[in-house]
């Protein structure tokens, strides 16, 4: 039970702080899950993130797969609800007010201010994952190649993920 409570507390906190989406909270998520709670190893974290990424559905599924890994189906459901509910309640409460002020100066300021923060958080998240996943030159090369592919081309993300998995499977 206390495990489920810990999951709920962690993801509810992340939910409210997830400016730029669930991926932006990856550094904090990894810190808590790997270092504070010792629920899994860094490599496992990177692998579970990758699996949730390759599966269909939105990014919040990282909370589902972590919860399920830690505490089974109940853990997956609790973690997802904790990740989704607080931000959704907030969105429902303030969306009307925000919409009424569409185009207002303070809204443009807020959006402009969030952009570099989101960029910084997502870059940090990518670095954290790369540090966990890249154990040698081959994995580092896969990461760089996929980064270039995602940045420069319109290749489907699944294609890049499948390519990485195939390379790992055949070369290691």
């Amino acid at each position, binding site marked *: 039970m206390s495990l489920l409570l810990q999951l709920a507390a962690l993801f509810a906190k992340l939910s409210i702080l997830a400016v730029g989406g669930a991926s932006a909270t990856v550094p904090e998520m990894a810190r808590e899950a790997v270092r504070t709670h010792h629920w899994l190893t860094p490599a496992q974290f990177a692998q579970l993130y990758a699996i949730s990424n390759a599966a269909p559905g939105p990014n919040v599924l990282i909370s589902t797969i972590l919860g399920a890994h830690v505490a089974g189906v109940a853990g997956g459901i609790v973690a997802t609800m904790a990740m989704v509910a607080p931000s959704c309640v907030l969105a429902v409460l303030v969306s009307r007010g925000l919409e009424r002020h569409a185009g207002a100066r303070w809204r443009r*300021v807020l959006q402009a201010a969030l952009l570099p923060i989101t960029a910084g958080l997502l870059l940090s998240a990518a670095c954290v994952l790369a540090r966990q996943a890249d154990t040698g030159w081959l994995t580092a090369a896969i990461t760089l190649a996929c980064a270039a592919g995602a940045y420069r081309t319109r290749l489907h993300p699944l294609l890049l993920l499948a390519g990485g998995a195939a390379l790992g499977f055949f*070369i290691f």
Partner: protein
Amino acid sequence: MGFFQAGIMGFGGVLPMARRMVVDDRRWMSQHEFNELFAVCQSLPGANITNFAAVFGMRHRGVTGAAVALAGLLGAPMAIVMALAGLYARYGALAPVRHALAGLAAAAAGLLLGTAGRIAAPACKSLSNVAVAVLVLAMVLLLHLSLPLTMLLALPLALLLASRAMP
């Protein structure tokens, strides 16, 4: 509202699917309304698409609508991912699986790096944006500050800079 779930199962990109269903197929919203509501959801914490589903469901059918929209959006993907977590627990340590997963994890990290680059590129037109992004990066990676503390420090600065830059 039950059929909300039908359209919203997409690999990687849930947003384009949701847009097509809400705007083109079911005509629940105009493109303009969709854009405006989505922009609102983007400036709020949480996954944009789940926020969108909750607000949208709430408007049309109240709390039940919000719950149904979220369940429709997340139900099937959650079941799939939890099944994958089960397989991972059972077979994740086998050598061939482990190797493929190592490659997959490296690819996923790269994917996020590329996406982050795409988001960062247009933001990097102004020096103050670069400064905020680098500051956030340093606070998270070098100083290992917690996310609440990072936001507490970065948000006021970013708001100040954005406010000064905007006429």
